[in-house]
């Protein structure tokens, strides 16, 4: 099969959908050259640096029959648009009794590894998970990127496409034929029987590397990639943990009130899954700090395959005996 980068797969998704539906248009502070070339400057708009306005204008255009895509580029730049995201986009369908739908895609790069320091390296998706009314996804492969982004563009809700900085140039197979991947469906990236690792984006690849190395020791690791954060495929996660009895959650974000906390709750609040647990759930997350610039510091802050491996070994040991009172 031919290979595309994660970034190319996303562009292909946008271009294919734009060819099929003239209601789709695209706004970003710098236009993406191949899109501009194919669709012209009315549909691929170079905008002033005014993300709050763009984010809101997308809502108005969507409510008026268009299907806008707003490319915030780094998620960092979406923070100047928080009112439009939090108070407007996420609530407008519900608050107005479902009178209109608001089909919008917001694109945002997340994650570290770029040495760009605290403002440009962020994984704040759990802030958005906390809102009701936005769908969110974060793919780990070019294949998933394309299929999910196409579904997002066709979805009648505001959807945020989180895209991993670390994966933009990573290649993977993408078929020439048309396909989509539904939002809300997890993917088991590797089947295993001893431990479940639920991981996102770049950490899916780190988890797969850890799983491969541990296989040599006879440890069988299952890697589950939720792909979509909202709606979250709880069933696939629970089914996996019921099978393995052990769970490690790997996330490039910090642990506090994060995606990892949500997954831990999904597993432990379910009777059957809780009953299957042989060990406390472990989270392998970034340190809860703004991301520092200096390479050694940045690398220390983020989890990687080694820390995932440590997490797996810890859950295999099972619960530590409770200290005597």
């Amino acid at each position: 099969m031919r290979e595309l980068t994660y970034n190319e797969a996303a562009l292909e998704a946008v271009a294919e959908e734009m060819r099929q539906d003239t209601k789709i248009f695209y706004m970003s502070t710098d236009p993406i050259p191949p899109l501009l070339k194919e669709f012209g400057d009315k549909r691929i708009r170079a905008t002033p640096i005014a993300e709050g306005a763009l984010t809101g204008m997308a809502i108005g255009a969507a409510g008026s029959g268009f299907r806008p895509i707003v490319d915030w580029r780094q998620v960092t730049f979406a923070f100047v648009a928080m009112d439009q995201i939090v108070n407007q986009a996420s609530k407008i369908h519900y608050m107005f009794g479902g009178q209109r739908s608001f089909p919008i895609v917001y694109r945002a790069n997340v994650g570290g590894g770029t040495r760009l320091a605290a403002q440009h390296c962020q994984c704040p998706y759990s802030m958005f998970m906390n809102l009701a009314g936005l769908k969110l996804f974060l793919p780990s492969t070019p294949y998933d990127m394309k299929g999910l982004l196409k579904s997002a563009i066709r979805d009648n809700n505001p959807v945020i496409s989180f895209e991993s900085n670390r994966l933009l140039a990573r290649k993977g197979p993408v078929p020439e034929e048309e396909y989509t991947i539904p939002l809300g469906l997890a993917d088991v990236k590797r089947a295993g029987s001893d431990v479940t690792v639920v991981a996102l984006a770049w950490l899916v690849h780190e988890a797969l590397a850890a799983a491969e190395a541990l296989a040599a020791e006879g440890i069988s690791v299952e890697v589950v990639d939720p792909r979509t954060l909202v709606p979250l495929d709880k069933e696939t996660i629970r089914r996996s943990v019921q099978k393995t009895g052990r769970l490690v959650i790997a996330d490039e974000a910090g642990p506090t009130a994060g995606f990892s906390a949500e997954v831990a709750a999904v597993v432990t609040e379910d009777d059957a899954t809780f009953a299957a647990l042989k060990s406390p759930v472990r989270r392998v997350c970034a340190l809860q700090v703004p991301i520092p610039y200096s390479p050694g510091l940045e690398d220390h802050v983020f989890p990687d395959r080694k820390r995932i491996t440590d997490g797996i070994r810890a859950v295999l040991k099972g619960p530590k005996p409770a200290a005597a009172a």
Partner: protein
Amino acid sequence: MAGNLSPDKQRQMLRQMLTIRRFEERASNDYHAGKIYGVVHCYIGEEAVAVGVCSALEPTDRIISTHRGHGHCIAKGADLNRMMAELYGRQAGYCKGKGGSMHIADFGIGMLGANGIVAGGIAIVTGAGLAAQMEGKGGVAVSFFGDGASNAGPFHECLNIAAAWKLPMLYVCENNGWAAQTAAVATHAMSDVAGRAAGYGIPGVVVDGNDIFAVHQAASRAVARARAGEGPTLIECKTYRQRAHTERKGQPDPRDQAEVEAWLQKDPLTLLERKLKAQGDLDDAGWQAMEREVMAALERAVAFAEASPFPTPEQATDDVFAA
């Protein structure tokens, strides 16, 4: 043109501009050599703005910068050693290696920080202007920002507040004609950002941002007005960045080569050097000595940076909260 600036002061301004130029060249070089990480936005071609404005300030006045911040730091008097150490990601850097190129600050000299968010500094420095007004000692605050930032909400919100409250502020727009890969003409309905001042009832002036004396004069007037309690001024400096938006290799630069060439002919550093020579305030020997001294200072800065250790992993968790 040079008004009442002494020859010494003019040479000092030239030296600062030269320092910025050579600092940026070194930063670019060391970035490509892999010693500086992430991203570097060079200020080359715009040096007359930072130096022209900062030379009209007192050390106690406060400024804020942008993602293109090295020039503002140097013009406000920052230490080259600690700047270079920050770019090198070392413990001795201004921000202990936590900030890097886009985030150098030196609060001790009234430099409230470079900023990775376009227009992210405008409100912060307007708060410093409010503080100066409340302190009542005649201090002023200066916001440096680009033409791109002038389209963002904080610019408009802050100009209004500063005008309504007569805050002692200078809003200095560095209009280099481009915001990353997007031309200012494509995103502004008016050719002059300064024209927007009228909407807030404050003076808006356009100056040749490559003519350091023009910049200095406009800044001096605005500073006098601010210190007298008459409120803010918007100064638009027409200038040009001579290099691509960032030093990253392979990024698109859609600018017309003829446009770049035309601006290279108006290089602010060369203009000042020629002026000082024409005035008889600088000779070739003096210029060469200045070059040598600036280069020596940069070599010292690099040596200082290289001698400083990288932060230890444990330091990643320092400074999340104040004591």
